């Protein structure tokens, strides 16, 4: 310990004379850090390239191939020649070999599945945001039993979506508890309206807690004394909400909505297990899987590429028009969260 102070002191006496050196040291430091960073990041980049980029490039290439190119006997891919844009035309322009797709085939379901996907997305995101906000406001208050509230909110989140789907499928069974409780006799999964409603209810139950937790994190960053000051100034509760809470929670809220939206656009588990895509509940993901199952890999590739592009475009619109900078917000909120 006695020798300890010396190096520190020496360093201190060294410093003052060398202002230029300091800059250079900083510069060199960044350079070495950059080198270290690329070493640390390279493995992840390689892994993600293998598990994401490679399959996607493969899918895009396949989407321009004819499906006849697949040898059904050997299961091996035999170059079946370029299909040009035929696979994309098949979905978007509804062309099935020169004629328009007959109703009932998978190809004919493209636009309706786009509609279903967006319907589910808009409905669930709006409901989950509104209810989630309400939940977050309650969770942010201090009262006895808050621990119980926060714990019970995590339960739906922890239950796997596949289990959630089975559970609500049972609740919505014809003789199930939902019909018995409300004295109704609805065939929940039997027609479009109730089937969609059932799926939305299940999704809201499962995912609203997650939304509430994200919004709660945003609410907790707002310092309490702003509210106190506003109260002293005689600002009404509603004004406090619209003038203080909303603008301050907006960045966290928008990021939460963005994540939820992109997640809802790839919805698969709930409709697949609850209705199997029947009665106008076929989402894009379900349609892709059905196309794979019918053995048309290349046209399925085209459809999954379309799905990917749709999600990408929605994300782009969000970032462009709502001015969300997910990267920056999450970077900043990470810093502010500790308090």
């Amino acid at each position: 310990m006695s020798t300890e102070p010396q190096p520190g002191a020496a360093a201190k006496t060294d410093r003052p004379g060398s202002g230029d050196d300091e800059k250079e040291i900083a510069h060199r430091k960044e350079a070495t850090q950059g080198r270290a960073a690329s070493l640390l990041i390279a493995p992840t980049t390689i892994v993600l390239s293998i598990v994401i980029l490679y399959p996607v490039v493969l899918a895009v290439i396949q989407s321009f191939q004819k499906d006849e190119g697949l040898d059904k006997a050997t299961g091996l891919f035999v170059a079946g020649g370029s299909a040009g844009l035929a696979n994309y035309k098949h979905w978007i322009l509804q062309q099935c070999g020169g004629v328009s797709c007959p109703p009932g085939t998978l190809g004919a379901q493209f636009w309706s599945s786009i509609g279903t996907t967006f319907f589910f997305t808009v409905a669930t995101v709006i409901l989950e945001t509104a209810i989630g906000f309400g939940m977050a406001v309650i969770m942010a208050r201090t009262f006895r039993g808050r621990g119980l509230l926060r714990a019970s909110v995590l339960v739906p989140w922890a239950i796997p979506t596949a289990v959630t789907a089975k559970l609500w499928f049972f609740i919505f069974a014809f003789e199930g508890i939902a019909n018995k409780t409300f004295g109704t006799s609805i065939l929940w999964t039997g027609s479009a309206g109730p089937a969609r409603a059932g799926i939305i209810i299940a999704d809201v139950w499962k995912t609203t807690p997650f939304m509430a937790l994200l919004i709660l994190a945003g609410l907790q960053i707002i310092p309490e004394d702003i509210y106190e000051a506003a109260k002293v100034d005689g600002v009404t509760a509603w004004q406090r909400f619209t003038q203080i809470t909303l603008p301050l929670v907006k960045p966290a809220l928008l990021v939460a909505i963005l994540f939820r939206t992109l997640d809802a656009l790839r919805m698969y588990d709930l409709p697949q297990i609850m209705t199997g895509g029947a009665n106008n509940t076929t989402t894009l993901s379900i349609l892709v899987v059905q196309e794979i199952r019918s053995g048309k890999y290349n046209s399925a590739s085209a459809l999954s590429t379309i799905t990917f592009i749709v999600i990408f475009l929605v994300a782009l619109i969000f970032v462009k028009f709502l001015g969300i900078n997910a990267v920056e917000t999450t970077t900043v909120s990470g810093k502010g969260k500790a308090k």
Partner: protein
Amino acid sequence: MSTATAAQDTKPESHAHVRARNRKRWESARTYVFAALIVFWCLLPAYWMVVTAFRDVGFTYDATPFFSHVTLDNFRAAFSTATGNHLTRALVNSLIVGVITTIISLLFGIFTSYALARLNFRAKFLVMGFILAASMFPGVALVTPLFQLFTNLNWIGTYQALIIPYISFALPLTIYILVSFFREMPWELEESARIDGCTKAQAFRKIIMPLAAPGVFTTAILAFISSWNEFLIASQLSNQQTQTVTVAIASFTGSQPHQEPYTAVMAAATIVTIPLVIMVLVFQRQIVAGLTAGAVK
């Protein structure tokens, strides 16, 4: 409340005071009502699952709101392989796939997160954006090419056929959460340890590792849960041998054709869910921190 203030309170109790206090009481009553509503809404369906799991098959649609006709038959049925269900094997499969996916994701994720949280370099935002985009990637876009690729490689029915696509969502998630944990760590302690005579390795082992452990642990839990809950990829890229729990539950069949064995399914669902719920409740604080830090499911 001390007697002095109590005496003061009773004396000049003006109308304004009473009104303010009433309003406060009214407000807290409202809070309790809403809180109770939320608790009921969140717990009732899960409660119903457990009630049904313990109920005799003959009373599947009984609407009695509490435990009645209690039996363990459903759990026996859930584990039975007589009707082609393999819940035990599915549990083992989910565990294997989940653990390996989590370990691989942590292995790669820790280094990248350290770089993103601690080092200054130009491409930082680009890398972060790339990882964010990766975490939003639709699973179905991977299933199409991988289904064909793995069929050709004869990999359908192997663990790697699940683990490889699982890494595509677990690794970005891991990095995302770890970065925000690492950013909040008191890294100056590392430097003080160095000044106190620790080597770089010692400082890492004695100071940084114990500090980082809770964050890494939380991340591991979240990565594990996300792969335990995955359904789309598992339903397409597994077979009977590698079927995971979510697929097993979704395709659970009873002895009677075209008749859902609801009570047995709910028993299986309870078995799959209970460990998860216990884990989540025990590590509640960490999980909420991890969830909101990463802002990803």
